[in-house]
């Protein structure tokens, strides 16, 4: 846990774990480059990001020592990524809901005062869109 006492470190074991981590990272790099030459359609981006995340996790856990470090550091790191996820999530929600907001789907703004105040038959609750409400009031 505490890496602070020199004599408590098994240098050989640590070095071996770093070599293994590096091998895994290089292997995943070969896989991700290889996969990019094959067309999986939408799957390509998913594969690329999943492998990138696996690599990032390996780096964070072993090279950045989060696996054996004090939990507070891991907590800070995870919190950072959670906030990044929030940021990304709300942006994606925005983009994905844009098709509801193309100009054809927009309604004309409601205008409140089409009939003069106190006119007989003026609807007290003009909930309908203004352009439609005005002629209706005249017909009455």
């Amino acid at each position: 846990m505490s890496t602070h006492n020199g004599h408590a470190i098994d240098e050989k074991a640590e070095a071996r774990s770093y070599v293994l981590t590096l091998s895994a990272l290089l292997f995943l790099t070969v896989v991700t480059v290889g996969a990019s030459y094959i067309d999986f359609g939408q799957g390509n981006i998913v594969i690329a990001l999943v492998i990138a995340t696996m690599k990032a996790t390996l780096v964070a856990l072993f090279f950045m020592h989060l696996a054996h470090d004090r939990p507070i550091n891991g907590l800070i790191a995870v919190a950072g990524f959670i906030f990044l996820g929030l940021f990304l999530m709300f942006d994606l929600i925005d983009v994905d809901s844009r098709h509801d907001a193309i100009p054809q789907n927009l309604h004309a703004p409601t205008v409140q005062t089409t009939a003069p105040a106190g006119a007989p038959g003026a609807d007290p609750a003009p909930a309908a869109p203004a352009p439609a409400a005005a002629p209706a009031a005249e017909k009455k």
Partner: protein
Amino acid sequence: MSSSTLDVAHTPHGDGAESNPHHQSHFTTMEQQFDTSKIGMWLFLVTEVLTFGGLFVGFGLMQNRYPQEFIEAHEHLQRLAGAGNTVVLLISSFTMVMGVLAAKTNQGAKCARYLWMTVGCAGIFMCVKAYEYNHKFEEGLLPGYFYHHKGDLIAGSHGYSTFFSFYFMMTGLHGLHVIIGAILLSWLAIRAKRGEFNSNYYTPVDLVGLFWHLVDLVWIYLFPLYYLIK
């Protein structure tokens, strides 16, 4: 912890805090001092993640707006150069972590060697980057207003220049981090060679190491998103 600062000299902490020239009086032990520095470094790294994160989100949004242009533009990037640079950075992360291990096992000369190897990898990375940038400059694949590449499928679209705006902004900011990292590592390598680090004090090596791994981490995402996405 709070009341023990005064009798630190009389308490057998066993980690040499009382005699360590790097020990700052407001910390009880060297270990506490080390942990505090590390928390600070991690907080800084989170701000880095969010800085790059903002750019990644922007890139994603623009890819959503100009999907065809982005796919076409990404064909101009050399996948093998990117893959080579990925390997270089991964190896540099390995030499970095070996340098930290050497520092905390009292092997200053070995630590310096590993740190210089890391600096060497940074140099190779930047050379490949310069080669790639040069290729983009020659073809007029430049950001924003300066874009003047001929023969795009969707002539006149802003999608291409937007792609290269993001490309140069993100790889440029990443490259700046590589350069800053290399400068810090050179400084540490000199100090390590002088034997300034040992099992009781290797904080700078460890923290710069964390920074260096973050640079690697950013590239781990940059590489697939720019070079591999279809």
